[in-house]
């Protein structure tokens, strides 16, 4: 093996003109410690034959001599800055890590910080007063979300036209009693299906669940718009109107005689407009009210529309 490696091969190697196989052979050859001396000798010779610079050794040598004669001059101050440098770099890493965590946390919890959310569970209703004095009654399995800061503050006209500060995101069903503010600020209810209810001050009920989106107006005036662009023009409701958002994205308006009935759940009542039939949906966790199709022989025959009080009022 050794016979393959000679000065010519190594010279070619230093000049970068050997084959990978030759390089591998050189590597094997270098594994022998005694060959290292040979290697460096040839490297030295090659370097002398291919000098790139010819610095004067005398000044460099006298510099080293002076350095050697003044001991510890360089070593000592050299030690310190590297240490502080290293220390600072470490500190810096901590600062970066902390601020990154803070940023990420802020980004993840921006909704929690910005909005206040009120939620009701199964079979629970809750009344709450918004910062502007309006009251919201939440039906079961519903939630409202509104700005924690600056709800109802006066914004410049051009801004409040686009995004009024009185904004409530509703999922589920809720009854609103909106205060008319002196500065005529709009109040907007946003539902998951993209139906927005814009009002000044009035009483109405909004249902915004996955199965149905519906608005019932008791008094005053509300305007319905859709968040997405659609051919459906904005609709102004009159008291007693009930508007359902069709799956096609159109409004279906009808009039009812007793709009109060739509919000009967507020007083823990519910209304059946016609007799329950076998089409009754099965009880599930999703439904707010669970009706059992039992009939007691002693009960008087019901007249419709009939109002019921839940059998177990304690759950309310």
């Amino acid at each position, binding site marked *: 093996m050794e016979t393959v490696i000679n000065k010519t091969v190594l010279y070619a190697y*230093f000049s970068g003109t050997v084959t990978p196989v030759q390089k591998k052979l050189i590597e094997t050859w270098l594994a022998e*410690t005694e060959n290292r001396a040979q290697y460096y000798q040839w490297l*030295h010779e090659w370097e*002398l034959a291919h000098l790139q*610079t*010819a610095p004067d*050794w005398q000044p460099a*040598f006298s510099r080293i001599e002076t350095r050697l004669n003044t001991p510890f001059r360089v070593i000592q101050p050299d030690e310190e800055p590297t240490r502080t440098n290293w220390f600072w770099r470490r500190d810096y890493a901590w600062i970066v890590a902390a601020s990154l965590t803070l940023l990420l946390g802020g980004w993840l919890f921006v909704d929690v910080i910005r909005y206040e959310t009120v939620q009701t569970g199964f079979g629970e209703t809750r009344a709450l007063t918004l910062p502007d004095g309006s009251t919201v009654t939440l039906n079961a399995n519903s939630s409202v979300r509104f700005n924690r800061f600056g709800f109802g503050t006066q914004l410049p006209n051009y801004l409040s036209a686009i995004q009024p500060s009185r904004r409530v995101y509703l999922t589920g069903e809720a009854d609103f009693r909106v205060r008319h503010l002196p500065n005529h600020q709009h109040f907007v209810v946003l539902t998951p299906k993209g139906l927005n209810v814009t009002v000044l001050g009035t009483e109405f009920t909004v249902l915004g669940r996955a199965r149905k989106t519906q608005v019932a107006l008791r008094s005053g005036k509300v305007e319905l718009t859709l968040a997405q662009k659609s051919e459906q023009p904005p609709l102004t409701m009159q008291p007693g109107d009930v508007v359902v958002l069709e799956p096609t994205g159109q409004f279906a308006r009808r009039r009812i005689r007793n709009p109060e009935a739509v919000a009967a759940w507020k007083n823990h009542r519910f209304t059946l407009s016609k007799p329950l039939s076998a089409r009754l949906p099965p009880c599930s966790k999703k439904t707010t009210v669970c009706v059992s199709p039992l009939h007691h022989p002693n009960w008087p025959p019901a007249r419709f529309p009939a109002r019921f009080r839940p059998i177990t009022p304690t759950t309310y």
Partner: protein
Amino acid sequence: MNTTRIRPIPKQDADLYPTPHSDRPALVVDNEQFVRTAFAQSPDEGFKGLFRLYYKPLCSHTLRFVYRQDVAEDIVSEVFYQFWKSGGYASIQNTYRAYLYAAVRHRAYNYLRDELTGPRAPLPLDAVMLTTADESPQTIIEYDETVQRIEKIIHELPTQCQRVFLMSRFECQKNQEIAEELGLSLKTIEAHISRALRQLRQIFLFNLLFGFVAAQGMQAGACLYL
């Protein structure tokens, strides 16, 4: 065969010693018998002889890594200084040449790597005093390949870029001076230099990827986490 010519060195006969102006530079090459005898007589003289013999080729070799005259000379001087100061010359088993070349290459490589990929934790001082026995064949090959890659990269740079790079580094000119000399804008000069450096950086990123010199990496790693 050369020993007859070189032996008078301890007697400080500089004329007989093959100087840079020697007509046959190959004559300088020899086993280091005469340096050993000089060291045996007086370490000071031996050291001086060593310096005289190797300073120039070592600088030239270092230049292949760092491409900067001043840095190359600093590195070589520093190796000599440590070599003398730590008394390493007394414990050389192999040749002085092997030690000096290995140390200089090691330093030059680390210098360039740190310059291009950011500083690392400083190595403990004893790590600087490496002996040739510590060097694996892979390390030697890696250093040689690095030299060749650097050369190739600089070779393949566009002419103007290469010119600017060499003026900036090898000739240590200021960017403003180069700009005036070549009649280019300062921005162009900076772009040329950063392009060259970016190309060179690839070498070390490649090495990092393949975990070059495990022992060295572990040493650096240990320092990092201490």
